[in-house]
């Protein structure tokens, strides 16, 4: 990325100079190696998410892949992709030159000290959502959780049919709308774009991921085994934690990574019903199948999962 993170003011100055119909209003937490801003389209006042990523070919290639995926999906379960533009070094030079050096000398020096480099700017639909803290109570209700999982697997079914594995499903990457419908964000970049993920990556793991939600095959970087079943595991962990209030194989932040790995190796997982004894048996069993350590013991396709969820929905109604 650039030497310094870009602030809202700077990005707005650049947008204005380039006559891009956007204005950012707030900096949001980084997404992978991209800086994220809440923005709006000036002409329509429509809120959107603006992301900037330094021009490193491998990163740009991955973002373009994500853009292609989003364009192909055309589903409410994923944000719409709205706009992209490369901001070249020459454009940035023109931007500096645009300032009057006599009246804006200090600002130009500030900007030059930031050593901005060419970057890719992308804009996605803004999804109105509620925080996980605010919806967890509702999701604990079985009927709601089953509906939520049905939506998640419908979304993943679309993704998987395009031979895409999300690889980093976790609450932060699932926005929950007021009506508890999920929207999945940050597609296809988990492997190399996760700054936050990298922070959590332990020396024992050979691949960037979020260990609390990652499938064992991700933790061991078994590349041929990282498939759509990897996403099943992460969703299973999310569902388990919603109902049980704890991680199925333990939380590495509490018990240490060695014990979590030990639990995974031994397939040692506490029965969900031990922590939530009112859980419907079939729902508990579905979640346990999702979080099986060996991928072959998980579900073989989204249709089967959905079919089972619809059966459970009938039972818990």
């Amino acid at each position, binding site marked *: 990325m650039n030497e310094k993170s870009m602030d809202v003011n700077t990005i707005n100055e650049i947008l204005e100079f380039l006559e891009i119909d956007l204005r950012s209003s707030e900096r949001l937490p980084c997404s992978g190696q991209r800086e994220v801003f809440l923005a709006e389209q000036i002409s329509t006042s429509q809120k959107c998410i603006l992301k900037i990523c330094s021009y490193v070919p491998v990163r740009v290639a991955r973002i373009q892949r994500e853009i292609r995926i989003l364009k192909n999906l055309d589903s409410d379960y994923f944000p719409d992709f709205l706009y992209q533009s490369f901001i070249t070094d020459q454009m940035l030079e023109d931007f500096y030159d645009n300032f009057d050096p006599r009246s804006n000398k200090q600002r130009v020096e500030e900007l030059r000290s930031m050593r901005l480099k060419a970057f890719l700017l992308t804009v996605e639909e803004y999804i109105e959502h509620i925080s996980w803290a605010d919806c967890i109570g509702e999701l604990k209700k079985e009927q709601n959780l089953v509906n939520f999982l049905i939506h998640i697997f419908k979304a993943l079914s679309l993704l998987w049919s395009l031979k895409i594995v999300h690889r980093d499903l976790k609450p932060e990457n699932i926005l929950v709308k007021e009506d508890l419908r999920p929207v999945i964000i940050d597609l296809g970049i988990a492997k190399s774009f996760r700054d936050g993920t990298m922070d959590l990556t332990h020396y024992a793991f050979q691949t960037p991921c979020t260990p609390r939600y990652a499938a064992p095959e991700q933790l061991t970087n078994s590349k*041929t*085994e990282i498939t759509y079943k990897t996403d099943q595991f992460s969703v299973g962990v999310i569902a388990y934690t919603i109902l049980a209030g704890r991680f199925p194989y333990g939380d590495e932040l509490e018990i240490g990574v060695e014990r979590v790995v030990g639990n995974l190796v031994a397939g040692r997982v506490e029965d969900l019903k031990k922590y939530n004894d009112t859980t419907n048996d079939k729902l508990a069993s579905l979640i346990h199948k999702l979080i099986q350590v060996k991928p*072959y013991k998980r579900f073989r396709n989204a249709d*089967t999962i959905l079919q089972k969820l619809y059966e459970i929905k009938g039972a818990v109604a």
Partner: protein
Amino acid sequence: MKVFHQAGHRTIWNLQSFREDNTGDGVIFSPVHFASERLERIVEQEIKEVSLFDPQFYVPDSQKSKLHSYDFFPEKIMNGFLTNDYEAVAYEAAELCLDFQVRNDFESIIIPARYFPELISDYVTQQKKHFVDPFLAAVERENIDKKVFLTLPMTAMMLMDEEFKTNLLNWVTAYPEIDGVYLLVNFNEPTKQLQNFAKFKSYLEFIQGLMEAELSVICGYCNTEGIIVAVLDVYAVTIGAYENTRGFSIDKFLENDQERRGPAPRIYLPKLLNWVRWDTAEEIREDLPGLWEKIYTPTEHSEGVIASGQRPHFSQPLLYKHHFKLLADQYSEIRGLSMSDRITLLQEKIIEASKLYEEIEDNRVIFFDSNCKGEHLPVWNRILRHLRTAL
């Protein structure tokens, strides 16, 4: 559960048995024994529609001439197979092979695979790159509405290696586009009947792993142990004539397999759950008619051999047709039962066979070929006991 003829040398016997004796539900055609033009020309469409075509890419550089009559066979399409260059033609070969299976309207599609005798670390990568991915791409492109089976040729060593086995299970169960697995195992055992408990148990556990992942399993190259496998209610088992269709190995794809001696004639005796050398059977029939009555199940084919008064020869069909008929009958008997009832029935058959073997021994009949003895029976009984515990 279906029963397919595992065709091989003299496929015509399988076809005759299927047509005339109604044995089996179809045929798995073997291109190494049946040239392309012949398969397209002489086999009726009604048979093809219930049958399968095994493309047999096991030894991709095989020089067997009949395999070369198929334009998609790796050695043929490359005019000299080279592993490193195969990727360049893999998609074309897949398309042609799929076209052939679709054009002939076989019951399902079989994706071929290469046979590797060792536990190689890139087994999955190679099968994926050369065969599975190209075939699945072709299946998707042509929008095929048939079941798709992935060939999985294994060795017993692969089955016994927990990590390798798990990797294979993880791999094959990760294709939602695949309906099942065409499983072939080279047990590499010195005995004709599978009587290595550890290997048999691993084999069944592997099949269970596949089935738990909702994959249909065709157990290819079954010998008599297929009736034990049938307890699991797999998608299909097979019946075959010559031994190389009742046990998987790649010998028949190699040039020098012609030099082998023909097998001694044997007759299948379902009450013994085994094949017995014709000469020993004759000894019992002539000297101990009461015992013969107990162990022998007649068919028009076996009666024909006896009536001829001639010692049969392995190149004659009657004893093989006799086997097809009786084994197919045994499968029919099992088919309608629950898993638990299948186990009970087979345990009863094993007890009955053991008693008959004891009676043979009591009558001082000596088997010159230990393969004709009932040494597999206690192992099979133990396997059934384990299967029952797993119920």
